[in-house]
């Protein structure tokens, strides 16, 4: 902590008044929105949020909420298959996970599992539509663009460390299928692009986004900026008096210049991580994202998301070979997620860092949608499984899934809610919906549940009409 504060102090000194003023640029740009929040600020239990996003629909029965194990054999009935892995104990008495998640199982004494999340019913499934809903709390389309939860947090809480953008989204590329839908919710919406995500699709090249352009030395970078200032000062427009647009440009340029030459940018350089630690995380891009998230969380990151990446029919989006692919996905996440929690715990940061692990919905071998609201099938699942390719959870299930949380005031070794042991494995106790999850995150950060802005004459809350209360049972 001490290092952080020293670094921050140095930085503030370096930035000088010009850039402190820049930090305030956000005020005029949003002034057309009249904030009406009046309730007292609640004491925060977290300063930083890390969202570990299991993109594509992670089956709860194959991961954190295992049901009866039915091993593969030729001709097994699909309807018998609830879990394709045996269950194994975790460090918490009576809590079992599906095989392949033992490292995460060993850190459950530091966190909570919610087993009763119910996704929205949006009809015929489109992953990105559910993801949009999860991240913004609003169902698309909307008549104004709702902000991502990270943007709300960036707006309400700002940067914790001025060098680190308050909203960082890692691991998702926007060149994949459904890219436009992905872009639509990776957005600050009506809050304005100031609060939008700082995108790092590939965490191992994160450094490129925070240093001078490739091939430009620091001295050249500095003299280039000097030249810009010199030319700008001779600009005849200046003679016409001050102008808010021109000033906002000058301030933003100054802030970006300071940020790109600050030594703190090295945080983004994963090659400076000790080799054994690097290898511990390195299960691929997701694992390295967890590593970068750790480094940022320890140095004043505000909201950081790390996605396993959504690409139609890949990742958790298992339309076939579900068993085999779930195994691979577990290999991808188990070690780095557990390591992230251990490292933050050891350094003392876990107390003020809320880590959430979630997915847009779950999967099932039989049911598409949810009981009573069956929607159009997208996968052909035979009654009898004659080929291992059909062994797994291939349909989209919206009636129950797991969300894991650690740190930031969350209870330790706690299980909230449950799902049925038999199909349909729906949430049957303490059902939780997205509004409550968002409100719980805001609660942990000390953001007023009534926070809203007036946009086009209409009050726009963090959750629709300000609905949903934080789940107080989750907090220790």
């Amino acid at each position, binding site marked *: 902590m001490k290092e952080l504060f020293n670094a921050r102090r140095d930085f503030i000194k370096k930035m000088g008044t010009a850039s402190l003023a820049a930090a305030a640029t956000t005020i005029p*740009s949003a002034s057309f929105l009249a904030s009406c929040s009046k309730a007292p600020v609640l004491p925060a239990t977290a300063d930083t949020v890390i969202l570990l996003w299991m993109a594509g629909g992670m089956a709860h029965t194959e991961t954190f909420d295992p049901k009866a194990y039915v091993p593969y054999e030729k001709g097994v009935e699909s309807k018998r298959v609830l879990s394709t892995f045996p269950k194994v104990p975790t460090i918490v008495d009576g809590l079992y996970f599906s095989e392949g998640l033992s490292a995460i199982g060993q850190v459950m004494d530091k966190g909570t599992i919610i087993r009763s999340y119910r996704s929205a019913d949006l009809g015929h499934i489109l992953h990105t539509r559910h993801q949009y809903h999860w991240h913004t709390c609003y169902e698309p389309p909307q008549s104004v663009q709702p902000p991502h939860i990270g943007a709300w947090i960036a707006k309400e809480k700002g940067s914790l460390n001025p060098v680190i953008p308050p909203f960082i989204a890692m691991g998702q590329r926007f060149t994949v299928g459904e890219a436009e839908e992905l872009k639509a919710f990776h957005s600050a919406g009506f809050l304005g692009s100031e609060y939008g995500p700082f995108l790092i699709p590939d965490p191992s090249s994160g450094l490129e986004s925070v240093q001078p*352009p490739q091939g430009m030395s620091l001295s050249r970078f500095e003299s280039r900026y000097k030249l810009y200032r010199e030319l700008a000062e*001779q600009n005849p427009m200046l003679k016409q*008096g001050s102008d808010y647009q021109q000033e906002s440009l000058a301030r933003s340029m100054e802030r970006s210049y300071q940020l790109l030459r600050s030594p703190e940018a090295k945080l983004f350089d994963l090659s400076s991580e000790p080799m054994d630690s690097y290898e511990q995380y390195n299960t691929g891009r997701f694992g390295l994202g967890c590593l970068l998230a750790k480094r940022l969380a320890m140095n004043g990151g505000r909201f950081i998301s790390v996605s396993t990446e959504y690409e139609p029919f890949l990742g958790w989006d298992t339309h076939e*070979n579900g068993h085999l692919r779930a195994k691979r996905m577990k290999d991808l996440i188990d070690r780095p997620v557990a390591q992230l929690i251990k490292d933050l715990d050891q350094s003392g940061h876990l107390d003020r860092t809320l880590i959430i692990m979630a997915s847009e919905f779950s999967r099932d071998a039989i049911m598409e949608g949810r009981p009573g609201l069956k929607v159009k099938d997208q996968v052909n699942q035979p009654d009898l499984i004659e080929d291992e390719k059909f062994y797994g959870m291939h349909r989209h299930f919206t009636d129950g899934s797991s969300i894991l949380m650690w740190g930031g005031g969350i209870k330790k070794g706690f299980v909230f809610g449950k799902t049925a042991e038999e199909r349909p494995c729906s949430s049957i106790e303490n059902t939780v919906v997205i509004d409550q999850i968002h409100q719980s995150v805001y609660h942990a950060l000390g953001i007023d549940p009534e926070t809203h802005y007036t946009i086009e004459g209409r009050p726009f809350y963090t959750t629709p009409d300000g609905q949903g209360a934080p789940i107080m049972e989750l907090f220790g």
Partner: protein
Amino acid sequence: MELFIGRLHPLMVHFPIGLLVVAFILELLTVGGKRAGLRQGINWMVMLGAASAVASAILGWFLGTYNDYQGTLVQSHQNWGITTAATAVACAVLLRFTEKGTLSSLIPYRMALFITVSFLTIASHLGASLTHGEDFLTEVFYQQEDSYDHQGSADLLAELNQMDSYSEMHLERLNLEVRAIFARNCYQCHSENKQKGELILEHKRGVYQGGESGEIIVAGSSANSELYRRVSLPADHDEVMPKKGKVLKDHQIALIKLWIDQGAYWADRALQVFPEAPLALAKPALPESPSLGHPVDKLVDSYFSNNRINWPHVVDDQTFIRRAYLDIIGLLPTPEQVADFRMDQEKDKREKLVDQLLNDHHNYTQHWLSFWNDLLRNDYSGTGFITGGRKQITDWLYHSLLDNKPYDLMVQELVNPTADSEGFIKGIKWRGVVNSSQSPEMQAAQNISQSLMGMNLKCASCHNSFVSNLTLEQAYGFAAIFADSALELNRCDQPLGKFAKPAFLYSELGSVEADSIRGRLEKLSQVITKPENGRLYRTVTNRVWKKLLGRGLVEPVDEMDQPPWDAALLDWLAADFRESGYDLKHLIKIIITSRAYQLPAVGYDDVAKLASGKYVFEGPVPRRLTAEQFTDALSQIAAPVYYATAYSPVQEEFSTSRIWHREIKFDRDVLPEPGERYFRYVFDLKNQPASQASLLLSVDHSFELFLNGESLAQGNDWRKVSKLEIADRLNPEKNIIAIKGVNEGSIANPAGILLALRIIQQNGDTLLVTSNTDWKSTDKSPPPEWMTLNFEDDNWSKVRNYGSKHWDRLVTLSFQESERPFARASLVRQHPFMKALGRPSRENVATTRADQATLLQALELTNGAYFNEVLKDGAERWLSQNNLENEELAESLYLKAFGRVPSKKEIKTVTQTLGEQPSKEAMQDLLWAMVLSPEFQFIY
């Protein structure tokens, strides 16, 4: 009796406030021994002030105790009031001691006076908060209060108070005023939308019926009416309405009392709570002003004289030509165009320039296309397309602008569309179930209201609006026009069991009822474009004015019920537009040729001043270049930012597929991994030798091309199409094209080959060879003879067509010489660079763009790889094309970028930066500094 004494408190408090504050001011005037004559008066004031402060405190105590005031606010006010009285007494005592000579200096007394006045201020503020509500000072900032005519209702009360008996007309006015008070202060909780305490104040039935605790009015007796009791309680009372700390104004309470006492009459007329602009256009006469010929200037002249503003001089030629180019065609004028214009001695040269630019049809279209794309939510990519839930109107829009289609016809074709223009009312539909307020027909109603009518229907599509007079029924009535079956009203997504009757928002314009959608749309298209629908024409006029001068006559531009800063000017322009045959170019011309447009730009240090209803026009506002203007200007002066468009107004000559090695993961086609891939294709000329053969090739990211085993070309920039003439290298029979392609990067990412080879054979036949799925490829390093005809590629696989899934039209392949060296930004698919610069993702109608820079934008401009590459390219071009001495280079750069010659100082800066032998890096950095400087970034 105690109560009566207590109520004298509000009267008494004004004495200490007045006396002590004036005493303090006068005291300040005597500092330094000046104005000794004031001393006697000050002494009296302090004494009387102290005495009245004590009296006020005592009376206040009575009021607080016997009048049942409670709460922390009351307590603080009481504490501060007593403290103030005590310090006032102390102050008076000190003064007395000084007068007597007991104290030698005035300083203790003066300090005490200062403290007294400070405490007094606090106590008074708390007191005012009690009587007027805590947000008394700040509430004037809320827009709803802003537009409310308090004077009107106070006047009504005064008028009615003077009368002994009331006519029906009076009772009606009284009732409507009371309902307006309800609407502004009570509807938020007590309306159909939100029936708190089961009370609805929106209609007669609700008011007469009362809420869960019974009736709220007893007609004829305010004393027995719960409604009156609740609104007349003290601000701090727990039961006070509208809510604790916020009470109605005295005259509002009095009006409610009067209304109840007079029998609580309910008028049949519908309530118009919010001010509405008249539907029809006024036809203002032009003021007499002999010195000014232009109609806009005659009107502005009268506006100026009303506001005591003198006409400034219009801008010089250089500034004007830059503005006109950027505003009409979105491009910078070339140095030659600037020079010619400045040399031109003709008197009407500005008007001629405007005509000339408006007649540059394609460039005009390619500039204004962005404005219309924003407004009509049209884009080349975005949500919805993936599941067929969205459609472009680009081709229709492009040709409408190109032909300068009359605006009424454009609107008709938008609301009653052809296949080419139906994308606008079709909205965006995501797969699955959609909230009733976002159904396609509701989106149509919302978008037409916002874009074309400057009206917000979004609130009313869920419930009766809180910010306008629009009702849920109106919103559904409008949406029903677009629905193919009866549309049931939903409030906040809950069905009401009531069906909407199709009607346009202004039913007075005519009926839109018909048996089919087509029939209704046909009627709507006629009704909405009637000349009587002034609002339609006023809205577009205001938008164009804002686009050209930076601030609308009405702001916000989507709230056309707000008062314009000059109503006569707005209506004259809109009427003139109508009379011109709805000619958009005429509208632009009449604005740009006015002196008003040609005034120097006026900057604002505070954006709130610009947006405020008290804005006074003094000239145009400096405007930041839009993402598209900046991109095109960069293409003009540095290097092409984009090479290919997502939409091309001309037909493609032929079609090709974008191919690459098929890559599979888990039985699924996926994005290509980085690395080398090898491609082969064999074709046969069948003994008809080629007389001419042109080959076009673009590979993302890099390639080496072989023809019949020989290396022909290499490239590493897919945006630059390689063009080769290869007739003399072709065999008369079999030929093989082989390509070694490389996909760069660290993770899987798009890659592809686009190739076209046109061969004209000696018998006159034309053969076209293109990249298609008959090509073969491998990702394994092949033996050295892989690029020859002899090689057997049986174990290679067929390539995959990556089509347009990730690219649309990536580059333009054409055998004709390209006339345009770069792609206009308006035609390019949304791209992170332009997005950072503020081009909106057109998921919703976007009628204004953010005009302030953000950090993420500055980062993109400081270290963005894409921008950096363009500048690098630009630096190379400047150094290779311009064999100039540094000074000439500086001049050429300044002329191109800023339209002016550099000053001596600027030449020195440039020369120093470039050094004796300009390096690519120095040139690149200079270009960067120039395009980021405000002079480049702004239209001023």
